[in-house]
């Protein structure tokens, strides 16, 4: 009389792959920016040593982990948070939210407003990481797109913006 079926919905492999690549690149770019940009370095200086930050998509990833070593050096620590002690986790609630974020249809702030990102951990550290990601976005993205991603596009010197951009791209690709 009533039909019933049980469904285990599948995955979204293509979107997943895209987000994984973006997260990988953002992670390496944060590491690079911490070495190239003084403002980013300062933000990390204020955080405790061996601070670990994780950004990723709930519930099954992908993730990216960035951390400070005991000596205070910022390093991209790969895609897997398992087994690491995470101090601050920013979780994107679902894959579609991640796609909206990484295709720049929604910026960080809007995504947080719409309950698509939740923060687990110390709030001041989360604010610092948001600022770091904003700066990284200014480096990585052309002005037209970066303006969608952040609230206020900064007026940087030519040197900081363009030389910095080249150095960060190089370091991110090469991973040092």
């Amino acid at each position, binding site marked *: *009389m*009533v*039909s*019933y*079926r*049980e*469904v*285990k*919905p*599948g*995955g*979204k492999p293509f979107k*997943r792959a895209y987000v994984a690549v973006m997260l990988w690149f953002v992670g390496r770019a944060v590491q690079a920016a911490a070495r190239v940009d003084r403002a980013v370095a300062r933000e990390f200086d204020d955080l405790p040593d061996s601070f670990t930050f994780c950004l990723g998509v*709930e*519930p*099954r990833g992908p993730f990216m982990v960035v951390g400070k070593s005991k000596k205070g050096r910022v390093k991209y620590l790969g895609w897997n948070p398992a087994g690491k002690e995470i101090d601050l986790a920013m979780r994107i*609630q*679902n*894959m*579609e*939210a991640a796609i*909206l974020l990484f295709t720049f249809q929604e910026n960080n702030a809007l995504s947080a407003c*719409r*309950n*698509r990102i939740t923060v687990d951990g110390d709030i001041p550290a989360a604010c610092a990481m948001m600022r770091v990601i904003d700066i990284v976005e200014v480096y990585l993205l052309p002005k037209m797109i970066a303006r969608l991603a952040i609230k206020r596009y900064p007026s940087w010197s030519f040197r900081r913006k363009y030389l910095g951009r080249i150095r960060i791209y190089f370091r991110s690709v090469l991973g040092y």
Partner: protein
Amino acid sequence: MFLPNEYEFSCFVKINSGTRALEHLPHELDALNARKPLIVAGKDVSKEGHVRKLMSAFRDSGMTIGVCDDISGPFDAPLIEAITNLYRNKDHDSIVAVGSGSIVDVAKVLNVSVSYGGRTLRELAGKNGIPNPLDPFIFVPTAGGDGYETSRYAEIEDMKFSSDFLMPDLVVIDPRMVTSRDTRIIVATAMTALAHAVEAYTSPAKNHITDIYAHAAIKYVAEYLIPVVRHPADRDGSCALANAACMAGCVVSDMTMGMAHILGETIGAMFGITPGICMGIVLPYTVAHRALHFGARTADLILPLAGFDDCAKISPSLSDAVAVTMMIDLQHELNGQTHGGIPRTLEEADVPPYMLQDIAERCITDDLPGYTYSDYLTVVKQAWEGSPAMNG
């Protein structure tokens, strides 16, 4: 500003509305401590692919879901029993209803049935017959509806249930689900919401919080109905109207159901017209009548109907009349946009003039004391002719 001396009000309904709202479902279910939802949908809805869209929102979530998506009438107690058994045997812990109208009644009563093992539905029916919270219940509206989906009421066979716990915990309004091509359905749903909201907003039983919901519903309809009728594919507008239906449902109660509601349902049943369309026709006339004879707070309607700028320009002494005129204007605009498809008067709706007394007689009900035969007759006559009662 109206200040009630004493009131109590609660609305458990949370609203998630807009782009990719469906994809928030797994997370929301988790927050309500639900692991294995049962999706309940009518045959018509699943044919349109809505259930498929809903299921794809669960991708990558790792959740297992049960689907009952070809439910068709009769919506009766044996049906509820059959689904209840499925729900229990398959260890479900929450209900997601997709659709509108009677399928939502099924889902609500199902929720009662799965939560109260030992007792029959008939024992639980009636006013406030359900003392404790039920399982998490999520409602995903599609186009259309009877205006009761988010209310505290449900009806199966001749059993009427009424409890705050019947209201959905969450309503998910996603633009992919709520657009419709049928302007008549769009108008009927929106006008039902408008009628319910206007009656709640002008009711003596109103309070600050019912005002919030009613204000929102009126504003959504006033601003988005015409654009959506013009371009039915308008996603933002369709979402806004679905919001209006949801908000109006939240404040529908015995206290706030007024003349327009009763007339609309009665005329609709007598002549086979969608009740929402009838409510739309009679609404301005009931509002004018109640302003004149019952001291209803019609002037308050200007702000949600017209917005800040126009509201500020209207002299307070005229606001009653302007509110009524604005609602009549809305009818004319709808009629024009649909090339006469939406009637403006009962005459255009093919209600025979010799039936008006009959209508008025059947409207008298204990649910709305104080309104007499002559009140109803005056209003139906005005609504038939299209000339409202105005002060002076």
